[in-house]
């Protein structure tokens, strides 16, 4: 058997089902890989070797079967896993062990997926680099001096470093797609409401959505199918059938598909290498038979400003639950009363970006400013949704670069919040409108991965996979290998 850590999830599951290899062997191979490289990558905040090997043994005992049975996975530390430390990258939750599983975790367990551990992230999912983690940044396996994206940067780094074939991320403004783009992976933000948010620690409830990170489009689809579907525990969960995302991956021809290139997501502010890789891939879409047209979404330039009012507003309310009373950190000085304990605990438990956003949200929601800020932002949200609705009257999917640039050096934007926020300029519109969106690797710029974003209407997630699988196959064929095959080997060090 070849190196078990380089197999895709689909290959791994087949090999386990055919008894060519045991799930315990596969899990151990990934635990060994983590031990070998995670000192450099720092993708994981907690590795649950014991729990993972137990879950693998249950698959080997024949207790669970299915398309992902025995496949290891890295779980973003924003999802509650019973009895396993869940920090959200924050000191305020250090040592907290949830008394329940998120629905995503329950579904992974039922599918026989082996959860290796919890991955690093920007604190409470606020950031684009993992530099806002209270536990130090993760590193991009393509170049360890660069960011792996964020907030799901640990999940992306783990998959790109072959520490796991699959990972779960969450995406509020691009936090799955941007790390996928800069690490050379496939990342999907499902339709809002497509995947349950029960047990996902809330940042911005109207925008948060969990989804898959993987090395191939098919692997992402298998994971998407495993976690999606209605959940009565989440009142915003959509009670509709999950589109056939796995079946859509058989697509190799795009005849009859109309693809719209979004004029406003490109040009000024986008790196030349990113634009070049993107446009070369759009030509491949044409070669695959797609009808490619340019479309305009005139209100997209206002998506970023609207997002940075809506998300902080919701976060200032959601994070009020961290009050030092029932769980998490409590800093008790002398016989200070409850309100003082709360203020002191939050001062010591939250990092600067979380504090900035709580203050910004409190401002945007305050009397006298509410209409000018939060109210106006909600109207912009309507305009963004209308832009999408109009575009999808004439096209099946929209495409753009996922990010304006490739992975930047750690530290470059750490002291400039506005510069960091621009990382998500192309991904935010989909969160505001709640539609489905994928990033897949489309080429290199300066030796670093570039992501192409595909956007589909709400509940048409299968279109992402139809277009993504065809493009991936064509690009791999032209390249003669996957993009990730050109990433450096982390263990070949002097």
């Amino acid at each position: 058997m070849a190196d078990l850590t380089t197999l895709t999830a689909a290959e791994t599951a087949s090999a386990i089902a055919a008894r060519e290899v045991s799930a315990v062997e596969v899990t151990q191979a990934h635990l060994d890989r983590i031990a070998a490289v995670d000192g450099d990558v720092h993708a994981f905040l907690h590795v649950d070797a014991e729990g993972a090997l137990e879950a693998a043994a249950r698959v080997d005992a024949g207790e669970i079967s299915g398309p992902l049975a025995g496949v290891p996975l890295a779980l973003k530390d924003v999802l509650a896993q019973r009895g396993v430390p869940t920090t959200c990258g924050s000191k305020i939750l250090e040592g907290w062990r949830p008394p329940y599983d998120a629905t995503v975790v329950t579904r992974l367990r039922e599918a026989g997926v082996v959860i290796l551990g919890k991955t690093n992230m920007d604190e409470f999912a606020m950031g684009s680099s993992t530099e806002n983690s209270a536990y130090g940044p993760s590193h991009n396996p393509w170049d360890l001096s660069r960011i792996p994206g964020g907030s799901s940067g640990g999940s992306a780094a783990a998959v790109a470093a072959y520490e796991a074939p699959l990972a779960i991320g969450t995406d509020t403004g691009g936090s799955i797609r941007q790390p996928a783009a800069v690490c050379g992976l496939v990342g999907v933000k499902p339709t809002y409401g497509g995947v349950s948010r029960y047990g996902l620690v809330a940042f911005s409830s109207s925008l948060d959505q969990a989804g898959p990170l993987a090395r191939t489009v098919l692997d992402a689809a298998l994971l998407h199918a495993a976690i999606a579907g209605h959940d009565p525990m989440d009142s915003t969960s959509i009670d509709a059938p999950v589109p056939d995302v796995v079946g859509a991956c058989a697509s190799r021809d795009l005849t009859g598909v109309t693809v719209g290139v979004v004029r406003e997501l490109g040009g000024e502010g986008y790196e030349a290498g990113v634009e070049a890789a993107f446009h070369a891939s759009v030509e491949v879409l044409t070669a695959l038979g797609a009808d490619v047209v340019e479309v305009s979404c005139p209100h997209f330039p206002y998506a970023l400003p609207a997002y940075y009012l809506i998300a902080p507003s919701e976060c200032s309310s959601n994070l009020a639950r961290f009050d030092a009373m029932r769980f998490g950190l409590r800093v008790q000085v002398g016989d200070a009363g409850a309100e003082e304990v709360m203020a002191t605990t939050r001062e010591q438990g939250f990092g600067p970006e979380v504090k900035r956003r709580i203050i910004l949200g409190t401002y945007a929601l305050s009397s006298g400013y509410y209409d000018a800020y939060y109210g106006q932002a909600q109207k912009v949200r309507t305009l963004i949704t209308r832009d999408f609705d109009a575009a999808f009257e004439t096209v099946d999917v929209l495409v753009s670069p996922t990010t304006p640039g490739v992975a930047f050096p750690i530290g470059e934007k750490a002291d400039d919040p506005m510069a960091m926020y621009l990382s998500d300029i192309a991904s935010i519109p989909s969160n505001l409108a709640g539609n489905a969106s994928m990033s897949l690797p489309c080429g290199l710029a300066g030796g670093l991965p570039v992501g192409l974003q595909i956007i589909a209407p709400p509940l048409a997630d299968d279109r992402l996979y139809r277009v993504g699988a065809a493009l991936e196959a064509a690009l791999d064929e032209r390249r003669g290998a996957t993009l990730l095959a050109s990433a450096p080997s982390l263990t070949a060090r002097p």
Partner: protein
Amino acid sequence: MPEPITRDEVAHLARLARLECTDAELDTFAGQLEVILGSVARVAEVVADDIPPTSHSVPLTNVFREDVVRPSLDRDEVLAAAPAAEDGRFEVPRMLDEAP
């Protein structure tokens, strides 16, 4: 266009949010928030009175479920994760007679 945010306003907002801030943080945040607010205020450029607000992309109201008894979280497990517990209950700092 709203007026620039002052250091005192930031301190007031932090107090409202039960968030102590150091003097150094207040200085940094006031400057950064002014830049951020200057940028996000652009939302005012495009909206008109006849545009309805969107609070949520999924148009749902009042989702109900059957009123059936289900197991709840285990009390001991929940209290084990609390900062302090006593006699099967959360123990919290004093709520009354807050220091002035």
